[in-house]
């Protein structure tokens, strides 16, 4: 059953075995697994319910509906970093590009060696990767929907001799509509909205949308339930209060909001690592302009990734944006902006994902919210320049005649020879236009309660029936798109819970 603000007209209380907070990559998986195991599950989702049939090509309409703060959220520091996060039923899986990668073995080796997480070795996680990939219909992007921009990208890689891979995505009969970031209107992208959540509901789970979890109530050292508010998305006013009595709680609100919820619940004083260790895979985008039409808005949002520099923590991929969103990221005013945008069909947008080396942090504010800070260090600044120079090189190798750069003091180059200036630029962090979709690490897994927030079973240290299963659990950045990792770990967490349910669900 699903309830939204439309059919909630009074304060209410509910009881369940497990309350899951969040319906994205982590929460939807947990809800499905536990509901299939016969448990009574209630999922709370702060955002609204928007079915596939309501998705539109218009960013003005979809950004306020599907994105937290209409896509205008900022991380503060020595450079403002825009971050985007889904806030709707299905979470960020509704707005992402659906790129599916297993956690690299080198990352899992690092987790084992540096963090003692031997249980998360690749061979131990493999069954979870496989089941998630099957449920999401993960497959390589087929040739039939490969856009011209992806073929240009591949051509650039081949001309330079760079190693590249065909991207895997969670798609079923994808038609290359390339509106993924505004919600897939065809239903091809297998977000949790159309994959895991319907399965959870079929098995008796309840989903309450427009319902923000305010506090996890802890009594006698155990989670007793969740206090929540039903919030009107149009006015942001609280319409009703709710209390969900639960025998166990899974917090799956994402790397920013799970720690914020823990702060509000008074649990942070027990664990100083809550909110620390924030990594975010800074993303930098370049736009290339070709003489011929490329029409990057047709075809799969991404077809290939260049992983030639993966061991250095840099990967490259293509993507594309509707004109309104593309224009806002280009550094031009007035007629200059239109002169550029007239070449929309000749443009390609390629990006670099950089594995960051220095963590940020989430800080509690007195009003129950939080602020996120992140400083780009000198090493990462140099890596940004290296990534931008490499992207420009790939563009020119693919035949671009102009490349627009995400550096405010050096915005474009028109000849390949100009690339060599890029690594030598003396730039501040604030000169870069950086954004991110991959926030992680703020409630990290670990075997030592002094340096982690949850244990190997995703159980909050010190509270037996409180669990976390989202991107906040990663001990380190993972170098690749995180959806499959989140879902595999959430599947494992749910399975561990089911195996030990007698212990976790004892009545207080």
């Amino acid at each position, binding site marked *: 059953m699903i309830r939204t603000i439309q059919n909630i007209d009074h304060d209410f209380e509910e009881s369940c075995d497990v309350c899951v907070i969040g319906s994205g990559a982590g929460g939807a998986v947990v809800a499905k697994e536990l509901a299939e195991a016969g448990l009574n599950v209630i999922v709370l989702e702060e955002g609204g319910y928007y079915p596939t049939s309501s998705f539109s090509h218009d960013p003005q309409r979809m950004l306020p509906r599907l994105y937290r703060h209409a896509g205008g959220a900022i991380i503060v520091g020595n450079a403002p970093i825009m971050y985007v996060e889904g806030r709707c039923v299905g979470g960020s899986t509704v707005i992402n590009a659906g790129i599916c990668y297993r956690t690299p073995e080198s990352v899992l080796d690092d987790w084992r060696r540096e963090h003692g997480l031997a249980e998360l070795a690749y061979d131990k996680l493999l069954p979870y990767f496989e089941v998630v990939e099957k449920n999401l219909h993960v497959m390589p992007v087929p040739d039939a929907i490969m856009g011209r921009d992806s073929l240009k990208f591949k051509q650039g890689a081949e001309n330079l001799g760079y190693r590249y891979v065909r991207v895997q995505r969670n798609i079923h009969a994808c038609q290359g509509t390339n509106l993924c970031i505004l919600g897939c*209107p*065809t239903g091809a992208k297998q977000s949790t909205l159309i994959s895991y959540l319907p399965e959870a509901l079929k098995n008796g789970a309840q989903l309450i949308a427009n319902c923000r979890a305010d506090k996890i109530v802890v009594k006698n050292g155990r989670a007793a339930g969740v206090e929540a508010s039903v919030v009107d998305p149009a006015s942001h006013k609280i319409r009703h209060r709710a209390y969900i009595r639960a025998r166990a709680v899974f917090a799956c609100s994402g790397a920013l909001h799970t720690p914020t919820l823990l702060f509000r619940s008074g649990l942070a004083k027990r664990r100083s690592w809550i909110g620390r260790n924030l990594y975010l895979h800074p993303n930098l985008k370049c736009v290339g302009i070709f003489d011929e039409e490329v029409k990057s808005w047709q075809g799969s949002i991404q077809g290939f990734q260049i992983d030639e520099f993966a061991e250095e923590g840099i990967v490259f991929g293509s993507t594309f944006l509707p004109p309104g969103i593309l224009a806002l990221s280009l550094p031009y005013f007035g007629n200059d902006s239109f002169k550029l945008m007239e070449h929309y069909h000749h443009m390609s947008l390629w990006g670099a994902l950089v594995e960051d080396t220095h963590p940020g942090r989430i800080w509690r504010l007195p009003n129950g919210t939080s602020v996120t800070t992140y400083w780009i260090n000198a090493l990462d600044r140099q890596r940004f320049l290296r990534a931008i120079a490499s992207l420009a090189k790939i563009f020119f190798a693919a035949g671009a005649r102009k490349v627009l750069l995400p550096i405010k003091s050096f915005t474009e180059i028109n000849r390949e020879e100009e690339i060599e200036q890029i690594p030598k630029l003396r730039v501040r962090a604030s000169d870069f236009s950086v954004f991110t979709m991959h926030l992680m690490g703020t409630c990290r897994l670990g075997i030592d309660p002094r340096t982690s927030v949850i244990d190997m079973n995703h159980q909050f240290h010190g509270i037996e029936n409180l669990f976390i299963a989202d991107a906040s659990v990663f001990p380190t950045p993972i170098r690749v798109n995180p959806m499959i990792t989140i879902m595999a770990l959430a599947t494992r967490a749910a399975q561990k819970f089911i195996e030990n349910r007698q212990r976790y669900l004892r009545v207080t």
Partner: protein
Amino acid sequence: MHRKILSTLQEKLLAQLAPHIIPANGPAVPHFHAKIVQRLDRFLFELPSLLRSLFLWGLRMFDFAAVFFAQPRRRFSRLPDKSRFDYIQRMSRSWFHPVRDWLFTCRGLILLFYYSQPEVMAALHYDPQAWARERVQARRQELHLTETIDELKILSEATQDDQDDSEY
């Protein structure tokens, strides 16, 4: 309906700023001033309160700082058109990055709105609605579907926004 964020003065300032952000030689958008102010108000409503306050404070500073950095030395709201444009260009190159970032944020919001207008997209020969409609139909044919996909059956009526919402 959301709570109105912008005061009359702030609306006027943004309406004065917007024509210098959008292309003067680009496609005209009917009732642009009224629409942009309404859109910006809606967007600002969605921002976190701290960020919203910073933005509005930045707008006020932008208006007053023209007394020091524009010619003639007047507030932005009292400058002639040409002087407004020159002042904006100067601020966009400021070494002080909060000024630059504020202006680029403003610019971004206005251009997001402008380039999402049907008239402007038509001038770019970009028709996402027709493209998406065609792709939706193509997938239905491939999978032999006869109905729109609504994965989760909602027990209540659709929201006011969602009624007759399907475009494809």
